């Protein structure tokens, strides 16, 4: 099947989970890139108006907290990061709320931890809340609850959490936006021959080896966490798109089925154990 035929199937996606990393939301100095967040809110509100059901998983709380407290360097100590996240999450929500509400789009904050996977009570509550919000035409804005959990802080940028959320709401598509254009055949910073892999239909050892061999700064979340996210979605049969968040308008192209970045599209029937 041709690449564009896989992308054609993406067009019918209705429930879409979009994950944005800190690198998309802020400048390298840690300050927020308001213009980009404004565009992102505009594109997402526009898609929602067209009848899509959008869920946004957003990092960025620690960067915002550091900016608010006027810290010049990134904190390294875990407790410090958690404290900054608690300060920054409040500010980040304020920014999102303002930018979405100016487009007549209501949003809600949902802070989750990984136990939505393992604890049935948590899973049921989280799923109920998200379903009810989507029914009310409200866009849920999700982040990890850093106060009580440190998976994001320790393991990187919400990639896996967004995959769990996609499974939880039975999404039709997960879009991971970060500072790289897609999954490369090798680390582009080291290997000039590296090219973007446009389509992946099955996870295999070679792919993980490529990702694992990559520099840890290879995209903020790293490729390993993106592969982990893809594995979670593989079990749930959800396609995953990896794209660059620098131009949020790219979301419109992805949802219009234009080949962009890397697409994980599962051709074999899902047989694995149910994750969510």
């Amino acid at each position: 099947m041709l690449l564009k035929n896989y992308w054609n199937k993406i067009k019918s996606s209705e429930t879409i989970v979009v994950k944005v990393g800190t690198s998309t939301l802020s400048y390298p100095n840690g300050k927020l890139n308001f213009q980009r967040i404004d565009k992102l809110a505009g594109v997402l509100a526009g898609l929602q108006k067209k009848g899509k059901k959008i869920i946004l998983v957003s990092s960025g709380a620690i960067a915002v907290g550091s900016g608010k407290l006027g810290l010049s360097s990134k904190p390294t100590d875990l407790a410090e990061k958690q404290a900054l996240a608690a300060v920054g999450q409040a500010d980040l929500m304020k920014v999102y709320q303002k930018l979405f509400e100016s487009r007549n789009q209501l949003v809600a904050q949902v802070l989750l931890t990984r136990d939505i996977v393992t604890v049935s009570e948590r899973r049921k509550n989280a799923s109920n809340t998200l379903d009810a919000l989507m029914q009310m035409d409200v866009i849920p804005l999700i982040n990890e609850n850093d106060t009580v959990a440190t998976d994001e802080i320790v393991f990187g940028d919400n990639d896996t959490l967004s995959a769990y959320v996609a499974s939880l709401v039975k999404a039709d598509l997960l879009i991971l936006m970060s500072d790289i254009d897609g999954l490369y055949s090798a680390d582009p910073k080291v290997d000039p021959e590296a090219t973007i892999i446009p389509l992946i239909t099955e996870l295999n050892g070679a792919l993980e080896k490529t990702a694992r061999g990559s520099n840890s700064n290879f995209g903020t979340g790293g490729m390993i966490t993106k592969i982990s996210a893809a594995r979670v979605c593989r079990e749930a049969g959800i396609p995953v798109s990896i794209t660059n968040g620098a131009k949020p308008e790219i979301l419109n192209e992805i949802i219009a089925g234009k080949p962009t970045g890397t697409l994980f599209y599962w051709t074999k029937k899902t047989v694995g154990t149910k994750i969510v």
Partner: protein
Amino acid sequence: MENNYRIIFRIEIDTFFDEQGNLSLQKMEHLVMVCTNMRNAGFQVLMVSSGAIMLGTAKMGLPQPPTDLITKQAIAAIGQTDLIRYYQMFFDSFDQIVAQVLITRDVLSIPVRNKNARMTLNKLLEKGIIPIINENDSVSTDDIILNDNYPLTLIVAQLVKPHAIIINSYKEGKFSLIVKNNPEIIDITEEDLFQLAVRIKSDAGIATEINFDCKTRKSLKPTLPGRYNSLAEVPMISGFPQVLTLS
């Protein structure tokens, strides 16, 4: 002046709404000023505040809060963003930095959660930031069902070991004060609170001072479940009474 004395303000947001169901921003701003003032006097201040459902209800234009649990959870997720935005707006105007902390009851039973929550709260207090705490209603329903955030206040008390809990009751324009290890609820005015804040200058035990200061004050009678005759009989958690409903 920093003395590491910790005070939890337990806020019931209903007291900020008038009979027409409108939020009084003036009352809210005033409370924020009182909290910031306690902070400026050298106390470490935490807020446990309800209000997400009431604000979410107002935002969605519903005549009254929803009754079914799932809608309540969704409304709480909508309202929490407004709640924290209002607090932040007012605290910003007094140059006080705040942080949002959403917790669930399992912070007491799951060791890693407990450690994380304590670390975060202690770090915030150490930095002079006021944490604004609520239950994470999206994944938990304990408080929604109870419709009372005093149990959540006690959970926070177990995490941060405060010296006193202050309960606002704006309908009467008064505060109620519970001092650790003292089975009495004391009715004090805002002026008393300020006086107290001004007078705490050293590491001399604040609990003693508050007790002493409030000896002459009226002691409030809480409503107790039938099996208890007086507050003295009520089991204490971290030095505070387990059940509390002010009459």
